[in-house]
């Protein structure tokens, strides 16, 4: 796939020099450099080849800014890093938002943090920051914001219009689960336009990473996605292990899988509860908490914490699992298998629930690709993309499990997929427990101070919400030079305005809930 692609790029795109890179070292298959005038040709090529835009990020190397476009395909991993160097004095680049809808927000984000102006972008307003900034926060040198940019960065303000009115869904609203604000332009009960306003929980984790050592950043990972803290933790340690080439003992790999899958069930359970609460049924919420509690008890027993576990370390684990953990996990798996019939009766079969969710928020395959959605939302559109299988990491390749997919792409499909994923997670846990090898849980000789070689890596993991990508640039110091988090909820939320157009307010709440958003992860 990669070789053929390189040949094709060389033949089709003028002046492009793609090079193949080692996937195990870098986390991507192919790199290519381009220039602003050739960008649209390159992007057009990938668009035609049905690639999706995985991530768009910027790095400030002081003497130049580098924009990185990561393209990938859903079913056969072939990640291409397209780099574009631009002048830090006059940072201008062509916008690709017309080709890739997911670039719309990424470009806004880069604009407010780095000051890169994307020509042809429809709306370069603030995404995260509010009330004006005097210099671009992510630049390595202090660059003041020019006055014309200040005006452009003005945050979203709804105008006055006849016969329609605006409703603020949030930032404090029962169904946004956190501090997301969605401005809805309403015509009676119907939504004409929805505009998410982000940044109420913005903490700038990416900047924090630049000021910390690799070890010191570890606790931050769980704070981004507090419901899938294990997955974020895992993604980060895998990225740093790839960067520093640290081997991981087999026992640690399997324990990581068990812990991550437990956490995945935990997250999906909470989603089921919260989603049903969105739809007005409050009892399932308490039932799932009963189940979730069993997982938390088991995880607390090894990690010492119930939500932000911070259990994995570079090269292994914080501490080894004991017999109590294994017995507890077995007991939970047994209990959980018998609980599905209860949810089936209470929720899945319920005619009111089915009528509320069937045919709502339908996502087509092409739409999913344009927006770069991932996780259960992507799989509901019928694309069987699960990174645990397609870009297997840790020891997932030795385990048997299915990728549940939907056929309609509606909200009911995402629900069914999450339930089926819980069943598959139970299967994974059972297998991992059976295969759990002995031996050390921590790699030998992991230096106390990591000084990775110069270069960049990309690492993806499948979190409960979808694809998490971590891009790290090292400059040989003990902390990252640049760290970018491609978070699943961010991409999944991008599709919401399109899905919400023309639907009832009640449906908008149902759609928003089905995306399974975790706001601190979006805002970072």
């Amino acid at each position, binding site marked *: 796939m990669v070789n053929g692609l390189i040949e094709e790029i060389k033949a089709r795109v003028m002046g492009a020099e793609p090079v193949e890179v080692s996937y195990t070292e870098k986390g991507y298959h192919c790199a290519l450099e381009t220039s602003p005038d050739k960008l649209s040709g390159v992007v057009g090529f990938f668009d035609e080849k049905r690639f999706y835009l995985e991530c768009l990020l910027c790095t400030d190397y002081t003497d130049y800014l580098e924009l990185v476009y990561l393209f990938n395909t859903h079913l056969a991993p072939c990640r291409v890093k397209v780099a574009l160097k631009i002048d830090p004095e006059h940072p201008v680049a062509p916008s690709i938002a017309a080709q890739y809808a997911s670039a719309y927000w990424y470009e806004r984000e880069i604009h407010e943090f780095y000051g890169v102006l994307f020509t042809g972008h429809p709306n370069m307003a603030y995404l995260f920051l509010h009330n004006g900034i005097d210099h671009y926060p992510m630049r390595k040198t202090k660059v003041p914001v020019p006055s014309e940019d200040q005006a452009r960065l003005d945050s979203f303000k709804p105008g006055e219009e006849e016969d329609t009115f605006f409703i603020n869904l949030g930032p404090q609203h029962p169904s946004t689960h956190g501090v997301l604000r969605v401005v809805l332009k309403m015509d009676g009960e119907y939504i004409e336009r929805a505009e998410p306003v982000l940044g109420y929980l913005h903490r700038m984790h990416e900047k924090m990473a630049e000021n910390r050592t690799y070890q010191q950043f570890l606790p931050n990972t769980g704070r981004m996605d507090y419901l899938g803290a294990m997955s974020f933790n895992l993604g980060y340690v895998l990225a740093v292990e790839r960067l520093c080439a640290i081997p991981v003992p087999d026992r640690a790999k399997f324990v990581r899988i068990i812990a991550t899958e437990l956490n995945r069930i935990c997250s999906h359970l909470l989603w089921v509860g919260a989603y049903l609460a969105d739809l007005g049924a409050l009892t399932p919420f308490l039932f799932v908490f009963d189940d979730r509690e069993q997982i938390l008890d088991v995880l607390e027993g090894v990690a010492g914490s119930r939500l932000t576990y911070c259990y994995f370390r570079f090269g292994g684990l914080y501490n080894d699992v004991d017999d109590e953990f294994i017995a507890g996990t077995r007991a939970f798996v047994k209990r959980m298998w018998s609980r599905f019939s209860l949810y089936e009766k209470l929720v899945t079969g319920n005619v*009111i629930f089915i009528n*509320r969710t069937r045919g709502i928020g339908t996502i087509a395959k092409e739409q999913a690709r344009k927006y770069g959605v991932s996780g259960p939302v992507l799989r509901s559109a019928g694309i069987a993309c699960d990174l645990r299988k397609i870009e297997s990491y840790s020891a997932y390749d030795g385990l048997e499990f299915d990728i549940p997919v939907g056929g309609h792409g509606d909200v009911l499909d995402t629900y069914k997929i999450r339930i089926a994923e819980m069943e598959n997670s139970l299967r994974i846990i059972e297998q991992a427990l059976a295969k759990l090898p002995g031996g050390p849980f921590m790699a030998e000789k992991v230096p106390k101070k990591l000084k990775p070689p110069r270069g960049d890596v990309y690492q993806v993991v499948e979190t409960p919400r979808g694809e998490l990508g971590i891009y790290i640039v090292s400059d040989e110091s003990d902390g990252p030079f640049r760290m970018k988090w491609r978070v699943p909820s961010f991409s999944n939320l991008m599709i919401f305005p399109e899905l919400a157009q023309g639907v009832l307010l009640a449906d908008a*709440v149902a759609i928003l809930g089905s995306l399974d958003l975790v706001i601190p992860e979006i805002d970072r």
Partner: protein
Amino acid sequence: MVNDLLKLAGSDAGKMVIGLVGVLLFVVVNALLLTWAERKIAGHMQRRIGPKEVGPFGLIQPIADALKLLGKEILTPAKVDKPLYYLAPTLIFVPVLVSFIVIPFDASLQVADINVGILVILAFSSITILSILMAGWGSENKYSLIGAIRSVAQNIAYEIPMLLALLPVVMLANSLSLREIVEKQQGLWFVVIQPLAFIIYFIAGVAETNRTPFDLPEAESELVAGYHTEYSGMRFALFFLAEYTNIFIVSAIAATFFLGGYQGPVLPGIVWFLLKSYLLVFVIIWLRWTYPRVRFDQLLNFAWKGLIPLAFLNLLITGGLLKI
């Protein structure tokens, strides 16, 4: 002196006053009890306990809550339409009180047996909608307004099947007086003859009281708290009180019309009446803690395309059979 008082109490006006005081007392006690029951039932359905700290089994909890609400500052948002905003929580009590006048708690325990009793209840219950609309409009809040509009549409839609479901019973009993309807059920409860009417009435009743799965006017995940978003303290408590009293009234009418009212062996009539009513109240609470909420258009479709034709059909068949 005592004789005078007794005489006064025996007169019609006196009876009315005593009745009203009794009704007021009952309304408050019933609402307090129901808030407690709701939380307790919800608790146990969710495998937890519910209130338990204040008093035995948490029985004093509603009083503590009422005291808290009384002690709260009465906030009036700056931009509200004051007359409407102030009037709405008071007005919502009128239908509640009037309905109680005609409900027969026992053979002799009824404030007034008006010969068009059921009409009084149905006519006055429409005032509830008015006060909800006033609350929603007067609050100058978009959530409240949407909640109020939903409530009006919903109540109009569900009042029709409700009425249509009660009519067959009226035809069977040949009377509009509630006491006579109960007396006619001595041998056989009307629910046996009219099971469909009972189900239609009960569904419409749940919708009338704005309870899950029909709680759209106050759908908290969409509209925060619907029409009473801007109300706090005692004004909010009045809405709450009215809501719980309405639940009881709907159940009481169902018991009167379909379950034989105060009729029953051994136990005194009032015990039977309360037993039947509270059983239905329990079912309404049970529904709330089981189902998700329906969507607005589905709710209206269900009423106009489902319940109303069905109720008409039922009415026609009953009428036809009675003629034969």
